[in-house]
């Protein structure tokens, strides 16, 4: 059973689906928080993911060239996170805040403009061509391989995928702690529930907005770095290509529901990968070229059938 069905299904479809789901989930967290707290769809979110990858790559190169110390991408992502948060806060202060009391479409357009600005900036600084993020062939994690082989269910999870899944689990636990145990996290949930009531309860909404950019920026860089680790390369449209599935994940989970976004991300990642599994006969169920259409289809169905998402999110 494992030889004929399980091995291929788990190693070539399920694990890549989970990895993709983790990346979507991390990106969707920022999108759903921005949507519910600041009330707009931030089109620049994918670009912050992308620039986070470039910042990380730069930190890795600088460390190696200047000090001869090769850094793991997860370590090199630390300064990248700080830069991305600073970028988010600066952009908010000068480009989004002036539109705070205007109709939401203006700030959505501002974010669309910011998306193009960030991408052009990256193209100008790092060039328009692909960069190798991590060279070499991805080797399976020996520990997981040996452990699972001993029970005759050999799982070949590449080290990069192991780090992506483990990293996502750690970030989810930290996020859960932040949102349910800390004052600022509870404040974020309160503003997400009702910004008007938050104001008349004395909550400093601007502090919450900054915290939102910090959490969103952190998760965006994590998603960008994990994506770059998965693809092993960087290119300037990688964030934009993730935008639609991330919105689909946020809508599927329910706007304003960070844990919904995680579930949404995993569902969409898995659905995309599993849609090309040969469920009927020998060929893929759908052609891999249409994989991204799966996210779009789920998003449209969800908006028609249950616009509040799986976890009863906010309706606009």
């Amino acid at each position, binding site marked *: 059973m494992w030889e004929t069905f399980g091995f291929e299904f788990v190693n070539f479809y399920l694990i890549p689906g989970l990895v993709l789901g983790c990346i979507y989930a991390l990106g969707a967290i920022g999108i759903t928080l921005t949507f519910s707290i600041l009330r707009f769809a931030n089109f620049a979110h994918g670009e912050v993911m992308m620039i986070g990858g470039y910042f990380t790559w730069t930190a890795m190169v600088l460390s190696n060239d200047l000090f001869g110390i090769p850094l793991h991408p997860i370590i090199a992502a630390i300064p990248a996170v700080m830069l991305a948060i600073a970028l988010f806060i600066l952009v908010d202060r000068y480009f989004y805040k002036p539109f705070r009391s205007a109709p939401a479409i203006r700030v959505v357009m501002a974010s669309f403009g910011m998306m193009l600005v960030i991408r052009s900036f990256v193209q100008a600084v790092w060039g328009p061509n692909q960069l190798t993020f991590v060279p070499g062939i991805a080797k399976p994690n020996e520990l997981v391989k040996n452990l699972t082989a001993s029970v005759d269910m050999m799982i070949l999870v590449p080290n990069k995928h192991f780090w992506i899944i483990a990293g996502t689990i750690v970030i989810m636990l930290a996020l859960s702690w932040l949102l349910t145990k800390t004052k600022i996290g509870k404040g974020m949930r309160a503003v997400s529930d*009702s910004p008007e009531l938050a104001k008349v309860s004395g909550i400093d909404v601007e502090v919450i907005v900054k915290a939102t950019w910090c959490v969103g920026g952190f998760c965006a860089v994590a998603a960008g770095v994990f994506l770059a680790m998965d693809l092993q390369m960087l290119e300037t449209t990688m964030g934009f290509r993730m935008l639609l599935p991330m919105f689909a994940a946020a809508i599927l989970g329910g706007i304003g529901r960070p844990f919904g976004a995680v579930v949404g991300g995993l569902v969409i990642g898995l659905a995309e990968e599993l849609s090309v599994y040969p469920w009927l006969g020998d060929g893929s169920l759908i052609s891999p070229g249409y994989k991204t259409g799966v996210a779009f289809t789920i998003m449209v169905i969800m908006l028609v059938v249950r616009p509040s998402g799986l976890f009863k999110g906010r309706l606009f």
Partner: protein
Amino acid sequence: MSKLTALEITNLHAGYGETEILKGINISVEPSQTVAIIGPNGAGKSTVIKSVLGLLNVISGSISMNGVDIVGIAPDKAVRQGISYVPQTHNVFPNLSVTENLEMGAWTRKYGIAERIDEMFDLFPDLKTKRNKIAGSLSGGQRQMVAMAKALMVEAKIMLLDEPTAGLSPKFQAQIFKTVKKINENGIPILLVEQNAKQALEIADKGYVLVDGANKVEGTGQDLINDRNVARMFLGSKD
């Protein structure tokens, strides 16, 4: 030195944008008083409270709290100044637990939060057993209690209540009025806007009848209950 008026509204003109709803309102709340504002729909009752809180445009007139001018103050600053406000609707965070709602009410408080939460559970014993329940899952009456407890988490110098009994069963209405009285007895002045005029006037030291954005009648709660015109118009009396 005589005690300062807890809230003094003088010749207030206010509204939404350019639309003037209040046309020269005068209201004063003395320390330790409960003051009720009654009147027909659209008289501008809730607008008075929203003006105090800086939620809409004050065109002219003055609003002062304990002698300090607070016209045009931002809502979060108003809370910091000690204004405790319970909106009529959407007055709890539905996806936060009861305790978390109270913690959010205490956002501006630096210390003594746990003690204050315990005090609130003493004041609203029904909430104690529901402390970990999500506020959105509670009944209307219980939600109203969460909203009042949340608003009282600040060091309140005055409490503004916007129709706290709207849509509640008679049992809960009576309970809310009883609690309002109790809060006032603890030394917090209260400005109450109410549709249930008779019950509101029964617990009020003073009442104002607003009609079409202007003061119509004022007097002690009992005077207004006994006023035949007021009784006929607002208290359901057949005389």
